[in-house]
């Protein structure tokens, strides 16, 4: 009798756990869609460097989120029907999805570290590709222009980056312009507020903040959404699967 009660308890736990997993799966699906869509503002920075797996992780998470949802619903039925074969199928499917989701989390967080662990990669990319004529250069130039305008920043760590290193920009626009004109403070009608001050680099005419902080926080935000949220789902699913295995053995 105690055995039967234990199995009933396990079944209830499994059903509730699977309902929860289904909801979590849908939420992961939604978050991953958001990351994939929203990220195309800053995608070139990751894409040009070849380390865009934060977004590859989000694509995988879209599929695994939906798959979690479907498999969890199937798991509810398998637990209620008390059939061994169905429980086994449920376990195997969940394990496969688990492996894919692990891969997504790990790759997202590793690539985020590579991209924005320190400012070197972003700085080198900016110096090399800004104002370059290639396709990658055009993308980077557009992205940086938008970032500099929105966040009101210049350079990676500061405008000194443009002076301290050689760059494609300095080769093209030479000694006349030390830094791009997007670094200059502008009026509300987009005119440069003080061209002289911008040329010499006075704080009244140029943005002195560096853009790396913003880029790092945005990319980190996407990564934490995919990897930490995925990690928490996986921890929950881990315990759920252990309980499911115990239930399967008792059936």
């Amino acid at each position, binding site marked *: 009798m105690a055995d039967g009660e234990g199995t009933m308890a396990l079944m209830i736990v499994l059903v509730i756990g699977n309902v929860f997993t289904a909801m979590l799966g849908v939420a992961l699906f939604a978050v991953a869609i958001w990351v994939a869509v929203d990220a195309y503002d800053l995608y070139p920075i990751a894409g040009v460097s070849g380390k865009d797996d934060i977004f590859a992780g989000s694509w995988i998470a879209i599929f695994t989120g939906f798959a979690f949802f479907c498999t969890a619903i199937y798991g509810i039925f398998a637990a209620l029907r008390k059939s061994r074969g169905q429980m086994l199928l449920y376990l195997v499917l969940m394990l496969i999805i688990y492996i894919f989701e692990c891969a997504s989390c790990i790759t997202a967080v590793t690539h985020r570290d590579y991209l924005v662990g320190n400012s*070197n990669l972003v700085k*080198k990319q900016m110096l090399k590709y800004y104002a370059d004529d290639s396709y990658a250069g055009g993308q980077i130039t557009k992205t940086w222009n938008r970032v500099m305008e929105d966040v009101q920043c210049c350079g990676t760590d500061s405008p000194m980056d443009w*002076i301290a*290193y*050689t760059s494609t920009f300095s080769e093209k626009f030479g*000694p006349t312009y030390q830094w791009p004109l997007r670094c200059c403070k502008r009026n509300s009608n987009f005119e440069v507020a003080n061209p002289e001050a911008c040329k*010499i680099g006075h704080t009244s005419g140029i943005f002195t903040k560096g853009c790396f902080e913003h880029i790092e926080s945005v990319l980190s935000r996407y990564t934490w959404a995919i990897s930490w949220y995925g990690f928490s789902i996986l921890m929950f699913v881990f315990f759920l699967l252990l309980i499911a295995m115990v239930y399967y*053995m008792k059936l």
Partner: protein
Amino acid sequence: MAATKEKDGRPGKPAGKESQPLIIAKTPAEEQRLKLERLMRNPDKPVPVPERPKEWNPRAPPEFVRDVMGSSAGAGSGEFHVYRHLRRREYQRQDFLDRMTDKQKLDLDYLEKVKENQIAAEERTAKRKKKREKLKQKKLMVKKAKLESKTAEAIVLCVWLGVSNAEVPITPEIVSSVAIGILTSTTIMLKQPRCYFDRLEGLPCSSQQCEVWLVVSRGNVGVQTFEEEETSDDILSKSPYPYAFQDSTSPNFFITKVGLQNTFPCIELPGIRYFQVGADGRCDTTNCNGVLPTGATVRVKYILVDPNKQRIESGTRWSEPITLLTPSASSSIDVSTWKRSGAMVVITVILSCSMAVLILMLVLVLMQNCSSFTQGQPDIPAPPALSQGIRRYNTHSLDNSEHYSNVRI
């Protein structure tokens, strides 16, 4: 009401006072609080402060000792106790005396220490005062000497004004750090020559006519080359900018016009005033303000030029050597030094371990599942006393109820 309060003639509380609810203090803090509250209920009443208990002094020896035994008497049973008591008193007295002396010694030591510290402090103050006096004297002497030398210099200048190459004792400098671009790899922002040449007299041109020019020379070679050719008549066009820094045989200096002398008046003008060397970019006229070679070390000097005669009338001193920045190559930035964040390590390790555990558990479960199929039903233990041939009975339990009832869940 008053009658009921006075029971058995005991004095009750005076009428009009309400009884306070009985609160028992559970912590020392609460006890203190209750006491304070009681005191504060009548703040005008003086608080009873008990006197300090008297210091213990050793008992004075008694004036009369009763019941003295004869000197030849033997000791009775009580003698030991008498002796015991007087021994105790004696030890106490000795102890008390020792403590008193220790206390007095400590007091005296403290007083002496205080005195010594005072003396040391006074000594230090005196030493430092002497030092300060010395410095003050030195400064006064220097000021006096400067004043004397200035007057001497002024006299000398006045005497020398007829000759060219007069030097104004001012050193050109970079503007103080108000902007990012004051020193780049190809340009320098210098302070404007405000009021540099206004004290000179006997010039052939007025301040509306005289022009201020700038000499930029690279290294000592440039300085020497310029100073050798300073007095020649065509000095202004002697070293055109495009050929100034070409190779080792070039003059390594060029001269460019800054402006009229009266555009740099002595009064303070608003805004940031600077003169940017290299503002014309890569130009090719003789006296243009072109960019300097990257990373070069240059020295600059403002000169006062008479435009009619094209001669140098006066000049400042040479500036300190200014080294332009050498930008590093962007390919030298090392992208392999990214640091692994703690989050990445945590996520990777925990997820990999949990994945391995799950796969292992699934494999174990499957193996057990397969082995349980071949063995029948091992979860029901075989009765130990029976042999192999006797049929086994399955008990009716809720687990197997689906085999025995027609109620489907």
